């Protein structure tokens, strides 16, 4: 029959679908070119730009401390990991000891940023599933964190607050109390989140069993962070190779386990509670003392010849800075290992194959990827 003939023509079997920056289902300025067959994905071609590579190149032309204004921009939802990882590397190469108080402040900043980023990520899921209440509520609550950041650092999103040898300002009078109030508030909100996100039949329908990643696959493809842990591999740099004062803090790595989209989101939700636990301990334990050690001024700031890879557990996984110095006032090379790189650029080409088109944005958002990481 005519109709059947048409169906079998290869010319019409496949079509190309571009989902890019203007698509609400994708995160950031990045695109996938999908080869589609009907509703399902046949082939995935990620289309990265040069954003990230540009950052790395720019760093070679700026003074060591000037870069601190640049690097937070590599990850908008959680800029602080960049600052801390970079400072940790530079400090290691220069042999600078960071005062205890500064280390606590850094942990506070990192955990607060982690919470902000989790809220941001979970709200993104609401966007792709049509569950807009969660978008508004979570973003609204995240704003309280931005207020705290603004008070502490002078900036809402990009804090530019870390400095080799410590942090730029000490905690303002009364800031910790406000932080504590905020944690109380957030803890009260969590049951509501659970109700309308995790016990929500629509969210469950859309995420349970979707995009299953086995533990072997996750390891094989270099996944890190909650995506890895949701597949049952309990690897967290804060535990495996504790930096700053994480070894003095008591927290657990929650186990969710079966590696589907739902458990990836749930993993973040449970880790958020652990972050609150960490913050509460920091408020208790933070010692008095200087928040900074003296280092040479920016124009004479030289890092001894050598190289070092420093890493920090971000809300997305391992954020690493490979720093090479030839002893000059500018870095010779800085390479940034973004945590979304492995999943967004490589693993996506496998994971999305065979998926239905409406699940693609959901999958993207449950991996909480951040395109500047792999836009290179």
């Amino acid at each position, binding site marked *: 029959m005519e109709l059947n003939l048409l169906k079998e023509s290869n010319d019409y079997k496949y079509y190309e679908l571009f989902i890019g920056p203007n698509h609400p289902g994708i995160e950031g300025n990045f695109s996938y070119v999908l080869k589609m067959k009907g509703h399902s994905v046949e082939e995935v071609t990620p289309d990265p730009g040069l954003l990230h590579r540009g950052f790395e190149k720019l760093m070679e032309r*700026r*003074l060591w*401390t*000037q*870069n*601190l*204004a*640049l690097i937070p921009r590599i990850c908008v939802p959680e800029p602080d990991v960049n600052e801390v990882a970079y400072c940790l590397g530079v400090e290691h190469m220069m042999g600078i000891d960071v005062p205890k108080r500064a280390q606590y402040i850094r942990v506070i900043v990192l955990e607060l940023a982690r919470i902000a980023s989790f809220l941001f990520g979970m709200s993104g899921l609401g966007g792709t599933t049509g569950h807009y209440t969660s978008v508004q509520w979570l973003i*609204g*609550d995240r*704003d309280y964190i931005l*207020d*705290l950041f*603004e*008070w502490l*650092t*002078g*900036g809402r999103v*990009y804090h*530019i607050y870390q*400095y080799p040898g410590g942090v*730029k*300002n000490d905690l*303002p*009078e*009364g800031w910790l109390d*406000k932080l504590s109030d905020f944690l109380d508030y957030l803890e009260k909100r969590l049951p509501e989140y*659970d*109700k309308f996100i*995790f*016990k*929500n*039949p629509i969210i*469950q329908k859309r995420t*349970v069993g979707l995009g299953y990643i086995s533990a072997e696959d996750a390891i094989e493809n270099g996944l890190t962070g909650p995506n890895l842990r949701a597949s049952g591999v309990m690897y967290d740099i804060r535990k495996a190779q504790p930096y700053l004062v994480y070894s003095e803090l008591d927290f657990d790595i929650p186990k969710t386990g079966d590696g589907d989209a*739902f*458990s990836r989101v*749930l993993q973040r939700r449970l880790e958020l509670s652990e972050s609150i636990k960490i913050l509460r301990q920091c408020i208790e334990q933070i010692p008095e003392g200087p928040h*900074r050690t*003296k*280092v*040479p*001024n*920016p*124009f*004479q*700031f*030289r890092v001894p010849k050598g190289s070092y890879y420093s890493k920090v557990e971000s809300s997305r996984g391992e954020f690493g800075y490979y720093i090479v110095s030839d*002893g000059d006032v500018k870095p010779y090379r800085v390479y940034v290992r973004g945590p979304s790189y492995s999943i967004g650029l490589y693993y996506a080409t496998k994971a999305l194959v065979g998926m239905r088109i409406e699940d693609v944005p959901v999958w993207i958002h449950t991996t909480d990827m951040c395109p500047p990481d792999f836009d290179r």
Partner: protein
Amino acid sequence: MGSQDIEKKNGFAPIVGLKYLFKKPHTIRYPKEDLEVFPVSGNSPNYRGFHTNDLEKCIGCGNCARICPTDAVTMVESTDVRPTNKFAKTVRPVFDYGRCCFCAQCVDVCPTGSLQMSRDYIHTFHPDLSIPVEDEPEIVSKDFIWRADMSRSKNPGYVRNESNKFDKVLNFERIEPKKADPDKRKISFSKYVQIYSKEEASKEASRCLGCGACVEACPNELHIPEYISAISKQDPQESLEWIYKRNPLPLICGEVCTHQCEEACVVGIQGEPLAIRWLKAFSASNVDDYLKTAKITLPKFNGKKLAAVGGGPASLSFGYYARLLGYDVTIYEAEEKLGGAMMWGIPIYRLPKEEMMKDINAILSTGINVHLKTKVGKDIKFEDLMNSYDAVFIGVGNSKPMTLKIKGEDLNGVMQGLTFMHMVNDGSLKDLKGKKVVVVGGGNVAMDVARSSVRLGAQVTIVYRRRIEDMPADPEEIEEAREEGVKIVEMGVPVEIRGKSSVETFEYAVASLVPDPSGGRPKPVVDDRSPHITLSVDYVIAAIGQTPSLDFVPAEIQQKIGFDGRSVPVDEYGHTKVKGLFCGGDASNSRQDIISAIGSGLRAAKGVDLYLAKEEKHV
């Protein structure tokens, strides 16, 4: 919790949501509503908003423009501001808010603290759509590019003020070199300030911003930021290479330069200036072979011959730079050793002679002829030099002391500062134990005389016409002299020296100070009511200045060049009004110190080159 527990369908769920209708909204309608988060109303107390700049405090050093990672800052000449201090410029930063990322690094490095950021939250840009695209730049500049002033400072945000200045990225405290205690140093002529160690030097150097504000203050405009930066890299060789470009007496200047640059150093405005001088001493003392390190290649002689009268820093510098241009230079020096006032004036506790000779020998090793013990005018005629050389340089310094012009000046025991220092330096004066010495004057020579006398065992009083803060001597010198037990009498005007054949008493009047209406230093005035005080003394040493002696130059030439007894007038290349006759150093400089002498020698070497090139063309 797991994927199993799905909320049962609940008919009341929509009603549960109703309670949020009555909650306060998250959104804050800024600036109508204040954020409640901060104790200060409005946005964060250290918010990084628009810049404010105290134009009266800003010195135009440009460090904000240099640190800005986004290149948002341009230094623009501003006609409506006054220079804040002697060395300040009238450029002021202008900010391009289309580029600025509000990182506040400019505020961090502002050495005066004049630059701050305000708590202004909003920046909106209203392009006028009726204006064609070609005219856009003007709108952009109107809306985006501003010179910061104090108009936003009522609402300060990110500020680096006096109280937290040691908290931010600049280091305001100087690394002090090791110094001997006053009690120890006053009994010995050995050097009491130690040269920096490697660590100290690079730590001190790492305080430098590299802005170059100091360069213009240096009489010979040395490459200061470059050589300090090399020290901070722990590379004294590279540092010396920079220094040697404009200063062939690096160790001498490292030890005793008058360091005017440090007065201009921007770090000194809120803290202690860089120890630019000690850093130079560090580099010079860590290099053995200057010429090799500075990669000096000597050209072949070009057949022209030059003479230099006097063997002080002016002639040495002239000789060195002229040699680099290929000239064959001969120095005529009256004394038995080179160095001039550095040899016979500066005491060895400040400048050991072997350090001085290290510098001088490097210069001589380029192949400069020296005739010692040859006084021009006595051992060889000045006219002969003029006839047998292509050009002549006069670097005779100041040798005619000014006298007190009071009664009793011819008594035994009254001495001139230069004579006294010569005797100390050549070893003919060995002991002043138990003697009482009065030094008249307030300059560096007076301090050297006083402190040398202390070291010889004397009890010393300095009598100066004005107040201590008016003294032209280095503040450090004055302080150290006092630490060593030197008494200073302010506003003392000498009246008479009495004694039979040698000095017995010294009388001075206590003057009152009358301010100078034209803004100069106040004038000491003695009248009938001024109290008179008499001290019993063994020596009176006058160190109130000296003038050049050009007695060896024939009178008609003296007249031709317009010598007035104080200074030889010259053009910017040290050329006098007589063709082929150049002059430099104390004899013609308004600033009388070693680095100015070096500068005049360098300029004269260039001047000779230009002059002879022109002469050749004419022939």
